[in-house]
């Protein structure tokens, strides 16, 4: 592993102490250092692994103090993280693709135990057949389990969302595990200049983890997760449900606090970003790094006078129902870009499409909506591809039928 360090060129004052050339994985490692994480459990799988490579080097060089454990499997890795979190230690793990799925049992109980560690998911296609490239099904497998789940699109956001993620997850009103997802290769391994916060600023923003009355310690002799059977599960599910609902408000608070410390980095409604949508008639909505070609396509089409825009969905759980409904119902047509699959589901759409369509159902003004399946297994989604998606979505405005409802983009036929 090599971490290229560039001398600060831009104005760095206040909350940021230097600017480094970092890829998504290395940026997350810096975030973990700044969050003063207590316990890290590692297990290798591409592409997230480089997060752990970077962390182990930081620890080896004495730049960061944490327990660092190389686990024997993802299941053990996630259980180590879960149990460290239960004794009130801030804990960190991560995985990709089938590794993430291998530890699924532990991921499920981390949420039902209402513990708030943070896991990074370097999105990867699910084997078989073997593929290292991005696909979102791995992270999305936890979407209904009581997790927080968000996607970042740059190394800068990746670093910052480690801090923001712990801030939200550990909030007493939330206490849910945090999934921080980033596209394999396109983000995990692409380098950008990243402003690295100072330790003082990070500390100012992120309070100490305090599980309080639920921490496991001889001075607090509680029993966690005893057998409840049919007597109490429903009430516990209700508590999870309410926490996930409350998280929406806490997310907003967290971004406002982050802006207070770090300058106005993020703008409302925080859960998603809009690009050139003010007078747009047709938009695409997607998750992750597809934002980059999509924004370029928007600019190019705008030069030709076409009223298009792009919505980058950052928070997937909790889903920003009200805000997104309000936003998307302004447009004539919406194209939903899925970098995932949901075979055999209603209308054979992707997962994001189901979520967006469900979100729009109660809207007074429902836009036409079409679905794109693209970029699976790490296939590139180019500027031309996103431009084509805009064009198909524009045509949907005039259509009454469901013809062309789903288009597979970039598929060899």
């Amino acid at each position: 592993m090599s971490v290229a360090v560039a001398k600060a060129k831009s104005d760095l004052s206040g909350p940021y102490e230097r600017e480094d050339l970092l890829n998504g994985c290395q940026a997350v490692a810096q975030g973990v250092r700044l969050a003063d994480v207590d316990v890290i459990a590692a297990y290798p799988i591409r592409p997230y692994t480089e997060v752990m490579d970077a962390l182990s080097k930081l620890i080896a060089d004495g730049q960061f103090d944490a327990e660092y454990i190389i686990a024997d499997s993802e299941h053990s890795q996630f259980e180590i993280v879960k149990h460290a979190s239960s004794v009130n230690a801030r804990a960190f793990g991560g995985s990709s693709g089938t590794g993430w799925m291998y530890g699924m049992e532990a991921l499920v109980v981390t949420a039902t135990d209402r513990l708030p560690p943070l896991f990074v998911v370097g999105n990867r296609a699910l084997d078989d057949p073997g593929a290292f490239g991005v696909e979102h099904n791995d992270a999305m497998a936890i979407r209904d389990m009581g997790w927080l789940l968000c996607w970042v699109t740059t190394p800068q956001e990746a670093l910052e969302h480690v801090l923001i993620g712990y801030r939200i997850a550990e909030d007493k009103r939330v206490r849910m595990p945090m999934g921080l997802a980033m596209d394999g290769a396109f983000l995990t391994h692409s380098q950008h200049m990243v402003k690295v916060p100072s330790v003082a600023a990070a500390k100012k923003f992120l309070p100490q983890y305090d599980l309080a009355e639920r921490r496991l310690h001889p001075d607090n002799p509680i029993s966690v997760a005893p057998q409840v059977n049919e007597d109490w599960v429903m009430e516990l599910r209700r508590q999870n449900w309410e926490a996930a609902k409350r998280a929406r408000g806490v997310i907003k608070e967290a971004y406002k606090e982050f802006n207070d410390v770090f300058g106005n980095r993020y703008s409302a409604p925080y859960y998603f970003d809009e690009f050139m949508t003010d007078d747009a008639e047709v938009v695409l909505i997607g998750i992750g790094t597809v934002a980059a070609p999509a924004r370029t396509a928007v600019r190019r089409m705008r030069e030709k006078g076409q009223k298009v825009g792009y919505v980058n969905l950052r928070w997937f759980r909790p889903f920003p129902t009200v805000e997104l409904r309000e936003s998307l119902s302004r447009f004539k047509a919406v194209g939903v870009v899925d970098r995932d699959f949901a075979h055999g589901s209603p209308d054979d759409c992707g997962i994001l499409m189901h979520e967006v369509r469900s979100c729009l159902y109660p809207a007074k003004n429902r836009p036409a909506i079409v679905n794109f399946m693209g970029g699976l297994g790490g296939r590139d989604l180019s500027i031309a591809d996103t431009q084509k998606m805009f064009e198909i979505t524009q045509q949907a405005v005039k259509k009454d039928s469901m013809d062309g409802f789903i288009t597979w983009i970039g598929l060899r036929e």
Partner: protein
Amino acid sequence: MSTVPTIDYEKIKGVHKIPLEELYTSGHRTCQGCESATTMRGFIKAAGSRTVVTGATGCMYVANTSYMTTPWIVPWMHTQLGAGGSSAVGMAAGLRALKRKGKIKDEKINVINFSGDLGAGDMGIGGISAALQSDYDLLIIMYDNESAANTDIQATGSTTYGAQTTFTPPGTKHPIMQRRWKKNVAGMLAVGHPTCRYVATACATFPPTDYLNKVRKALSIGGPTFIHTYDPCPKGWDYHPRFSNELGELGIKCGIYPLYEIVEGQIIYTWDARKTGKGRIPVKEFLTKQGRFDHLQEEHFTHIQKMVDEMWEEWEFPGVAPIKGILKARI
């Protein structure tokens, strides 16, 4: 290397010296005659209250720790069936980091996990192996009642050869469905982890106080340690609940369950039939007291006796490791 302060445990010399304080008390729903409940009660008596415990899924979770009626006076947390080792590592790591960073008081806190034979010996063996490679102070207790007792008695890798379980019913074509010889978990873990300083086998009630002192020894020696307990189960083994203690004793005396500890690489037999003058009792005497062996024929008893004899007479380290010496001739 452990740097945390240790608790100075005294050796318990006789049953009258066993601590009176109960840290595992009423509230559990274990069966009458449950030896595993005695295993639970014993380890926490021996360890004391400055202890955190995880219990893997199994009968000692499902029957043992129910919401609103927990029997645990010490902090306790459920862990997944195969997560005994990793749960202990996670808690030990968390506590060590918090102590080092000054976030909690620097004192000795024991971390103990208990997992059943299915959880520890089969599903979680990889995680326990990793835990025994670590440098954390933790103790893993595998309570072995020779079945998945919580799911209505299914065979595991630790079930005695020939036993009837719901997965291994005797039939007209196949009288023996459990054809696997009992997995040698303690021996395997001792042999495979050169830096693990303490591995033992035990039975909660025989010889008296032996188990409690093994728990104390494990916690005093420190680092990652492992104890395998032999827990007769009235429901799974099919006998009257009053005989649990007796069956544990017979299992040890017939030699099918060797009792030893390995301290810093040295074996100590903590009950040794070879030194009694009487030798091992016939295995059949132990087996015929249990309904799960009702279907066995003479040939099966003979086979089991032969295997047990081999354990004691042919293994280089009797009862511990199935290595029969070095073959001189080149093959």
